[in-house]
């Protein structure tokens, strides 16, 4: 994946935090969120991600646009 930064460090932190609460490390992870700071950046990424996934849905949540993509190549995190 070239557009977004690799998510491994984020997922490491998430699973470490889960482990600290006694939760297993092998929980299935079916989606990952990436937040941007401006509408301009949102539009740029939304357009760019269309080449790397399929836009499944787009809606407003609490005044913020949220776009959900199914990636053509899924992340593998083991």
């Amino acid at each position, binding site marked *: 994946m070239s557009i977004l930064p690799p998510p491994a460090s984020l997922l490491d932190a998430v699973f470490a935090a889960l482990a600290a609460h006694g939760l297993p490390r092998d929980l299935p992870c079916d989606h990952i969120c990436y937040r941007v*700071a*401006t*509408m*301009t950046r949102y*539009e740029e990424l*939304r357009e760019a991600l269309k080449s790397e996934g399929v836009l499944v849905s*787009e*809606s*407003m949540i609490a*005044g*913020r*646009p*949220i*776009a959900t993509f199914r990636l053509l190549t899924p992340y593998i995190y083991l």
Partner: protein
Amino acid sequence: MSGFDVIVVGGGHAGCEAAAAAARMGAKTALVTHKFSTLGEMSCNPAIGGLGKGHLVREIDALDGLMGRVADAAGIQFRVLNASKGAAVRGPRAQADRKLYRNAMQAILRDYPNLTIVEGGAQDLLVQNNRVQGVVLGDGRTLTAGAVVLTTGTFLNGLIHLGEERTPAGRYGEPPALGLSETLARYGLPLGRLKTGTPARLDGRTIDYSALEVQPGDDPPQPFSYLTEKITTPQTVCHITYTSAATHEAIRSNLHRAPMYSGQITGTGPRYCPSIEDKVVRFADKERHQIFLEPEGLDDPTVYPNGISTSLPKDVQDAFIHTLPGCDKVSILRYGYAIEYDYCDPRALTPALESKHLPGLFLAGQINGTTGYEEAAAQGLMAGINAALCAGSPEAAPFTIDRAEGYLGVLVDDLRVHGAPEPYRMFTSRAEYRLLLRADNADQRLTERGIELGCVGRERANVWAQKKAQLERARALASETALSPNELASRGVTVNQDGVRRTAFDLLRYPDVTLAQVLALFPALRDFSPAILEQIEIDGRYAGYLDRQQADIDAYRREEALTLPATLDYKDIGALSNEIRTKLERVRPATLGAAARIPGMTPAALISLLRFVKRAA
């Protein structure tokens, strides 16, 4: 006498605050009210503040408004609600002596510089070239001004319902304002109908308090105003009673006589302050409802039973009130009632609270669909300031506060974007950035803006300057002086032996380290007042969260910086659906951020707007 810069119509909480704010701004101001003696009247609950509302009072005070100081003079039971919870949701509240409140407000306004009180009823607006130029009074007098603020409360076409009885009135015993409603409709302001209610008033001398729960106030009481050092008014207590199955049965068996349910009332009521008949129907599974018996004054036997507002007929009120524990022999001084009134859809206002239909006309308070003294006063302050700016120059940039600066901003933005499909009241949950928008730091957020604008007087500016200097010294001390892990361990505080020296702020991030321990470790901090130390503790405890919230605010401000022209023709943006276009035309959001908050807005429409803004830039 006839020429003013600003005329404020209405002497309730919005009107008093609007008039004082305009006058502080240097505008020659007239406050038109039926009677001087009712200025500052608390028509309903004799209390100020609460969750969200207390935040508004502190912000009004930070901009040198009146409500906080008046409540401090009149408060007879002070409590900080949610005191055991986080700082963001604590809400200062005070039970007020109704007469002391009125007297304190009138004492301030009587000699307020630049302010003239005019007794009379506003009958019509003076409009020339589609711009408001003044008001016409019922006795034929004409007052001219550069801007007019309407704060008519429930008086606009007011209609009181008490069982099957209907009486045109603005509030109990006072006539409604009929002509103004017609005028507003004539100029195209979108009017709607809302309702609110008030409970019966009881004679406290006939209540048996012996079996009731006592609710004391805080000791010491915490003032609202940053100018009040200490509460000196004698304090009293409230009591708590409950409805019972017998109460509910008395209400349920007479529901057909309630104007709410018989179809006699068509206006929408406040969901968060329902009448007792509404509670009995909507929460049918609840066995009892709490009722606070609140004294209306130190030398007044009247008691306000908070929680049983009603429009049921008198005989039904008699029946159900006498089922309440402690009230079996109570004497009812006045019956409760509901009141329907006209309001203007606030989506037809600019961010300055000026009418889009009638330039020069500003609206504040219940006329904009809000409920509550604090919400009214907050809008009064904003409208008064903006009316003064407009009177000086109609092209002047308005004074606005954004959602990240204060609840004042949240209030105005919510009203403009969402309208008031039901009476609007403030809650802490309405503010996205509530960790920063706390009741304890309103002066830090707003007073300097008020000083720059010119609505803050010398006394407050001096008090703020001293506090600011103290805060800076305390923050420097708390962030610069540090102790090593060994030094901490020798004084009973265990941290990782990592060699990192820790400041007071660092230590406050540990949930098990108390402020008292920090003061023992850094004794120089003890020289500061409790108010300053409270800020240091909050800064330290929530540092990480506050940083994160600041990042959210930065993002929000970037969207707010993308402005949409007031004259924008949405038909020029081809990609918008008819539904979205209609919504945008009704609200006319000032920024891309405001557009995003419109219910029903879609990402596609936002992107179209964004592209349009970029092209226009």
